[in-house]
């Protein structure tokens, strides 16, 4: 395998992900995972108000099967980073991400979680992807509930295609293991 296996960067990963078609089992499990996302709402700031509106009856997130917030990383597979992540919050975010069960995805909800927004200073972290790999970024401060639902559909497509960071990493480890055997 001439393709460099060390990175899960989407550009390289897309290249070698095409080489290995998904097995039928993978397709089935991804289909199951896609429609039953349990979110861990890592809520810190103003986007939390919009997160409430997304969960509220009007822009109901329950239509997409991601409605039930689980407040423990053990029982959730979608980490929604909602709001500004400060340097002091960094270790807590990293620890919670590490403690999540394996097929896990991350949505950066709002521009503060994506790039730090207009808080470019000593305390606000320029985006939560400084600490954890993020699958879908949602712009907006706070993003409109429709944007959040659109991001959820984006994530579902990515899960079905098997291109979430954690999915790519498991595929890479499996390939590295098989490569090691030969």
């Amino acid at each position, binding site marked *: 395998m001439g393709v460099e296996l060390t990175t899960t960067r989407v*550009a390289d990963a897309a290249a070698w992900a095409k080489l290995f078609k998904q097995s039928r089992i993978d397709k089935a499990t991804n289909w199951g995972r896609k429609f039953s996302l349990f979110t861990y709402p890592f809520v810190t700031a103003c986007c939390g108000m919009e997160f409430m509106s997304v969960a509220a009856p009007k822009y109901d997130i329950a239509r997409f099967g991601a409605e039930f917030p689980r407040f423990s990383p053990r029982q959730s597979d979608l980490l929604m980073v909602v709001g500004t992540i400060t340097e002091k919050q960094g270790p807590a975010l990293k620890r919670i991400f590490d403690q999540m069960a394996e097929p896990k995805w991350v949505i950066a909800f709002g521009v503060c979680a994506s790039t730090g927004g207009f808080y470019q200073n000593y305390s606000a972290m320029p985006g939560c992807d400084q600490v954890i790999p993020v699958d879908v970024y949602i712009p907006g401060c706070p993003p409109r509930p429709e944007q959040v639902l659109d991001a959820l559909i984006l994530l579902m497509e990515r899960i079905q295609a098997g291109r979430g960071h954690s999915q790519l990493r498991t595929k890479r480890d499996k390939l590295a293991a098989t490569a090691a055997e030969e």
Partner: protein
Amino acid sequence: MSQKVLDALTATHGAALARTGSAHGDDIAWVRRESLLEVARWLRDDPAMAFDAPVFCTCIDWLDWHPVGRPASEHWSEGKPRFTVCYQLRSVAHRHRVRLEIELPEEDPRLPSLAELWPAFNWQERETFDMYGVRFDGHPDLRRIYMYEEFVGYPLRKDYPKEKRQPLVRRDDLPENPPASTER
């Protein structure tokens, strides 16, 4: 508003006050650092004053302060005191307000703490210490409140650059340039 507060203050504690004044409806009394505790205790316990409600405590850093349209004498220069700690007090009974301002030199920003007189100042003095590095003697537990312990320096000082980050934890496989992927 209530000039009588300043008059009463100058009458009883004239020596302790550097100067008094009022700006935009607030009465300000510049108090000397040594007699701050005594003035504050009098303001709280004197029935005519009855300043029982603390409002806020903060600090102003006058480094390179150049007010537009003011004579050069007001500009900040090396010898002048660099920090001014402001305590705003309010009386619920008499409905008047006063602001105590204490000027501190740059090399020794230290003043007695008013945390025992008004419990609200306990956290606000910790915040002022965390942000400006002003030490409050006699404060129950003076430690950082906003920043994490490993943070070095006092961020709100004028000479601390805005974007100087001291990260606690970073991702090990941090992509040098974020993935420029356009496809879903």
